[in-house]
C-alpha cells in the first residue's frame, strides 16, 4: 500500500517534469522546425509543426543576407578577449585582496565593490560613448572589448575562492623560497582550475550576449556582432520570412548553447558561485 502510493507519486512527478520540460523547450523546437521550412511553407495556415521539406537553404540565406559569418567572427573575437581579460585580471586582483595586507586595501576594495551594480555600458552609456569617440575607437574591436576587460564580480569570486585555500600552503611555499608570483602560478591557479573554468565560461556567455553596447558603438555590418545581426535580419527579412530569421537565431544561439551542454557542470558551478548573468 505504502509502496503503491510512492510509485504513483513518482509517476506523477515524472509526468509533470516531462510536461514542463516540453513547454520550456518548445520555443526552441519550433524554431528548429521553422528554420527547415521552404518560404512557401512558412505561411501555410493552419501552421504545421513538422516541415515537409528539409530546407537547409534558409541557413545559407541567413549567412548571405546580413554577413552573419563576419558578425559571428566579431562576436567570437570579442567574447574570447573579454573572457581572457576578465578572468586574468580578476585572478590578479582577487589574489591581491585575498593574500596580502597592504595600506588602503579596504578602501580600494570598497571602491571596487560599489561598481558591482554600476553597469556603465548601460546606465552611463552616453559619456562612455563619448570616451570611445575621443579615443577614435568607435567601430573597432577596442570599443567592443577594452571597457569590459576587468570587473568587480570576477575579482570577488576569485578572492572568495582563494581565501578558502589553506594558509599553510603559502607558508610552505615561502619556506621553499617561492616568491608570491610563483605561488600564484604554480600552486593557487592549479588548485582553482574548476572555479576559474566556471568563471571563464560565464564571462564568455556574458560577452557573447552583449547587445546595447555593440549596438551603439558599431555602425557597419563589418564590425557589428551576432546579436545585432538578429535585429538586422528581422529588418532585412521584412516580409517576415521566419524560416530565415529562425535559422539565423539558431546559429547565433548555437555557440553558447553548445558550450552550456558541453561544460554544464562548470557552468552551473560558475553561475552559483558568481551569481553573474548577462
Amino acid at each position, binding site marked *: 500500500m505504502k509502496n503503491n502510493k510512492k510509485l504513483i507519486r*513518482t509517476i506523477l*512527478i*515524472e509526468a509533470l*517534469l516531462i510536461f*514542463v*520540460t516540453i513547454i*520550456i*523547450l518548445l520555443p526552441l523546437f*519550433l524554431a528548429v522546425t*521553422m528554420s527547415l521550412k521552404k518560404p512557401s511553407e512558412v*505561411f501555410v495556415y*493552419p*501552421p504545421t509543426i513538422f516541415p515537409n521539406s528539409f530546407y537547409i537553404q534558409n541557413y545559407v540565406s541567413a549567412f548571405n543576407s546580413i554577413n552573419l559569418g563576419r558578425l559571428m567572427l566579431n562576436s567570437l573575437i570579442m567574447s574570447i578577449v573579454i573572457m581572457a581579460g576578465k578572468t586574468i585580471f580578476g585572478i*590578479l*586582483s582577487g589574489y*591581491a585582496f585575498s593574500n*596580502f595586507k597592504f595600506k588602503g586595501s579596504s578602501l580600494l576594495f570598497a*571602491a571596487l*565593490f560599489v*561598481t*558591482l*551594480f*554600476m553597469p*556603465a555600458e*548601460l*546606465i*552611463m*552609456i*552616453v*559619456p*562612455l*560613448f563619448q570616451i570611445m569617440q575621443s579615443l577614435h575607437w568607435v567601430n573597432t574591436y577596442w570599443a567592443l572589448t*577594452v*571597457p569590459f*576587460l576587468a570587473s568587480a564580480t570576477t575579482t570577488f569570486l576569485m578572492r*572568495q575562492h582563494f581565501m578558502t585555500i589553506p594558509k599553510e600552503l603559502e607558508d610552505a611555499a615561502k619556506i621553499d623560497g617561492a616568491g608570491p608570483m610563483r605561488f600564484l602560478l604554480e600552486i593557487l591557479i592549479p588548485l582553482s582550475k574548476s572555479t576559474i573554468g566556471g568563471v571563464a565560461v560565464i564571462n564568455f556567455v556574458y560577452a557573447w*550576449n552583449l*547587445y*546595447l553596447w555593440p*549596438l551603439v558603438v558599431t555602425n557597419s555590418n563589418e564590425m557589428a556582432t551576432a546579436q545585432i545581426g*538578429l*535585429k538586422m*535580419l*528581422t529588418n532585412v527579412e521584412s516580409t517576415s520570412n*521566419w524560416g530565415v*530569421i*529562425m535559422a*539565423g*537565431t539558431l546559429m*547565433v*544561439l548555437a555557440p*553558447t*548553447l553548445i*558550450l552550456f551542454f558541453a561544460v*554544464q557542470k562548470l557552468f552551473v558551478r560558475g*553561475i*552559483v*558561485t558568481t*551569481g553573474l*548573468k548577462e
Partner: protein
Amino acid sequence: MAKKIFPYLLLVPTFIIIVIFIYYPAFQTFKLSFYKISPFGNRLFFVGFQNFWSLFTSGQYIQSALTTLIFVTVTVIGGLVISLFLALLLNEKVPGIGIFRTLIFAPYAISPAVAGTLWAFLLSPVAGYVSYLFLILFKAQPQWLTTYPLALIAIMIATIWKNLGFNVIFFLAGLQSIPQSYYEAATIDGANSFDRLLRITIPLLSPITFYLIVMNVTFTAFSAFATIDVMTQGGPANTTSTLIYKLYQDGFVNFNTGFASAESVVLILIMAVFTYLYFKFGQKAVFYQ
C-alpha cells in the same frame, strides 16, 4: 620594497579599467546632466537643474518609469514563482532527474535578443503557434506585438522564459542546502507537505530569494533592452519603452545629451540605493553559496 608594491601591481589592470570606464563616465554623467550641448556638440551651456526639471515634467519620461515599474514587478514576481515551482520539481529524487535539470537550465545560455526573435516568431500573426493556439482556444487572434498592453505582456513572457535557467539553478542550490533532518523532524511532528513548504522551505530560502530579487530586478530592467529592441522597438506608442530604452533613444536617436545624462543620473542613484540595500540585507545570500 618590491614586496610592498607587489599587491598594488596586481591591482593595476583592474583599476585602470574601472577608473577609465566606470568612474570617469559616472563623473561625466553628473557633469553633463547640468549642461545643454549645442546641436553640433561643440559647446556646453550650464543650465543648472533644468534637465532634471524637464525630465520630471515630461509625460513620456513618467510613462516610461511607470512602464518599467510594472514590467519589472510582474516579470520578477512571475518569474520567481514559476522558477521556485520548477526547482521544487527538480529537487525530487526520480529517475532521469539529471537530464531534466540539464534541459531546464538550458535557457540560461539564451541571450535577450535571441529570446526576442523566438517569441516574436511564436507570437506573430500568421506563422506564430501561440497566435494559432489562441484562435483555437478563445476564437480570438490578438495582435501581440502591436497592441497595448499585449506588447508589454509579450516582452514579459520572453523575459521570464529567458530568466528561468538562472533562477532555477539558484533555487535548486538553495533547496539542496536545506538539511533533510528538518523535514524529517517536521514530519514526525505531523506537518503535511504544504506546511513543510510554508514553514521550512520558503523561510530557509529567503536569503537566496532576496539575492534573486536584486539580480532579477537589475537584469529585467536593463538586459530586457535587447528583447524590447528586437520585438517592439519601444512601441506601440512608447508603451514598451522602459527607462533604459528611453535613455538609448534620447542619447542616440534624438541626440539630447543633457537630458539623457539626467536620465543616467537617476538610474545611477537608483542603483546606488540598490547596492546599499544589497549590502545591508543581502550579503549573506551570496557568501553562503
